[in-house]
């Protein structure tokens, strides 16, 4: 592997101009991808947390093209979120958007990513080999979470949206309110919470079986590489998806095709 750059040589990113305005606390850089950067800050009042997604201008791109793409992508992401929100797919609410300024402000979703929840769950059970759905260990909370993910995926696809970049890092576990726990017996677990989908930067509106199958396949691959010990539980996602979404059967047939192609291409990531 090439040497990773030292922290000192990390480029310092300028804030979007909107975050140079006064606020009760400085913005916190949460994530920095190829697309843009995500900050945690506040919206309107000090106790309303929000996520600001910023797509900075790309210096390599012709300015006309740059403005066109930034606007189109932010606007498309916002429309997808609106569509999901109105159809009851759990996504962050949109608070504000300035497509020309390259930013939008979204509801801050409390809770850990699903990735962390599953890792914590598995980490607390180091002796368990879950690859063969061990009957002796109670995996009910994990199965329940898989089902909730499948249900959310079904709802997403039913509404005519494909996410385009599904991983367990792009799903949050929003804590249940008191007494909302759906587990029998009352004891909470690290897998509790409503599954909320985030980061729709690559999402598109599509009704095609192919696009939906690829969406599932991307999640399946990400799940297998992120949580190899829980891979056997992914089937519960697909089962719940099948129950939630009327057109699931043809998507799942397509998924088998996509898996075959995927192996042939032997791609990574």
């Amino acid at each position, binding site marked *: 592997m090439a040497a990773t750059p030292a922290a000192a040589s990390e480029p310092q990113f300028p804030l979007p101009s909107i975050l140079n305005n006064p606020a009760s606390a400085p913005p916190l850089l949460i994530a920095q991808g190829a697309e843009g950067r995500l900050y945690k800050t506040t919206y309107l009042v000090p106790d309303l947390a929000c996520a600001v997604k910023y797509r900075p201008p790309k210096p390599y791109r012709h300015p006309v093209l740059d403005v066109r793409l930034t606007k189109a992508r932010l606007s498309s992401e916002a429309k997808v979120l609106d569509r999901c929100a109105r159809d009851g797919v759990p996504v962050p609410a949109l608070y504000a958007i300035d497509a020309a300024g390259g930013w939008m402000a979204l509801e801050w979703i409390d809770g850990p990513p699903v990735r962390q929840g599953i890792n914590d769950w598995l980490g607390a059970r180091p002796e368990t080999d879950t690859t063969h759905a061990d009957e002796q260990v109670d995996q009910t909370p994990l199965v329940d979470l898989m089902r909730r993910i499948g249900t959310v995926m079904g709802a997403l696809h039913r509404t005519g949206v494909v996410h385009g970049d599904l991983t367990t890092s792009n799903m949050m576990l929003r804590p249940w309110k008191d007494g909302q726990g759906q587990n029998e017996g009352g004891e909470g677990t690290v897998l509790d919470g409503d599954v909320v989908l985030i980061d729709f930067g690559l999402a598109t509106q599509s009704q095609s079986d192919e696009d939906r199958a690829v969406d599932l396949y991307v999640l399946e691959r990400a799940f297998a590489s992120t949580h190899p010990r829980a891979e056997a539980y992914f089937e519960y996602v697909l089962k719940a998806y099948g129950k939630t979404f009327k057109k699931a059967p043809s998507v799942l047939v397509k998924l088998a095709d996509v898996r075959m192609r995927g192996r042939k*291409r*032997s791609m990574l990531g």
Partner: protein
Amino acid sequence: MPDSQGRRIALGCEGSANKLGIGIIAHDASGAAHVLSNVRHTFVSPPGTGFLPKDTAHHHRAFFVRVAKQALRDAGIAVSALDCICFTRGPGMGGPLTSVAVGARTLSLLWGKPLVGVNHCVGHIEMGRAITGAANPVVLYVSGGNTQVIAYAEQRYRIFGETLDIAVGNCLDRFARTLEISNDPAPGYNIEQLAKQGGRVLLDLPYAVKGMDCSFSGILGRADELAALMRTGGKGPDGEDFTPADLCFTLQETIFAMLVEITERAMAHVGSNQVLIVGGVGCNERLQDMMGKMAAERGGSVYATDERFCIDNGIMIAHAGLLAYETGFETALEESTCTQRFRTDEVFVKWRN
């Protein structure tokens, strides 16, 4: 066997498209590569036409002996000094590939040297790494036949993104035909020169990136339509006339932005800040410039080679072949076939960690 100075020497034959290249490389005891010779002869078709497999294959057969002799003369070595004969197995055009493979087999039998079949794309990547010193870059491989974003992991060059239809170089070549721009020395080079005179206006072309993949056929179709519009006196978005130079400028700005975008996405994905551009389109200075700006913003840098190495050549086949040969790899005569489809990630890269 290493020679008295501890060197190993290989001759490489390349002819997957319209360039016939034969080169000779030496790896010294430390593993450093030294180019002893690098000879190329290009089949140039008239303006408005592309190179056809049959004519190109004929060209390679006609020039093989001349180019091989020149390569040996330039290197100043005896045939006996060669350790192996390397040749391109694919991917590429069937006829031209086969012509050169026949030549390589003949040399192998004539001189009693083992054959080493090489993946053309891996040849580009290894030569690029050797010339630039980029240790573990994300690689953008862009040529007339290929458009791939590649990163190395676990003994393979993994393809993270690629074109979903035609290659970027093919898009440029075909647009050069639309504008009837000369194919000498290369259509892409002439588009690049013409684009430098454009830029007054950016015309509207589709932008087709999907994740780390991209596609060019829709863009080419729209560019062809705009060319037709230009000939009939149509106006640009500013209500003014536009020129072939404006079209070339717009085409480059659009498709290069797509390439840089998917490369950046792959860099973010694997956490790398080095990028290496290889393949014929990699000679384009505007593409290098745009890639450099992106890499600089990520605190890294872009590595590119000049036309001797980024355009198809024999030396890269010799180099990649010798790397494999040094790990004990040989291609038996009866298995020394060519294949038009040969994915970069099919090669087991034994020579890297």
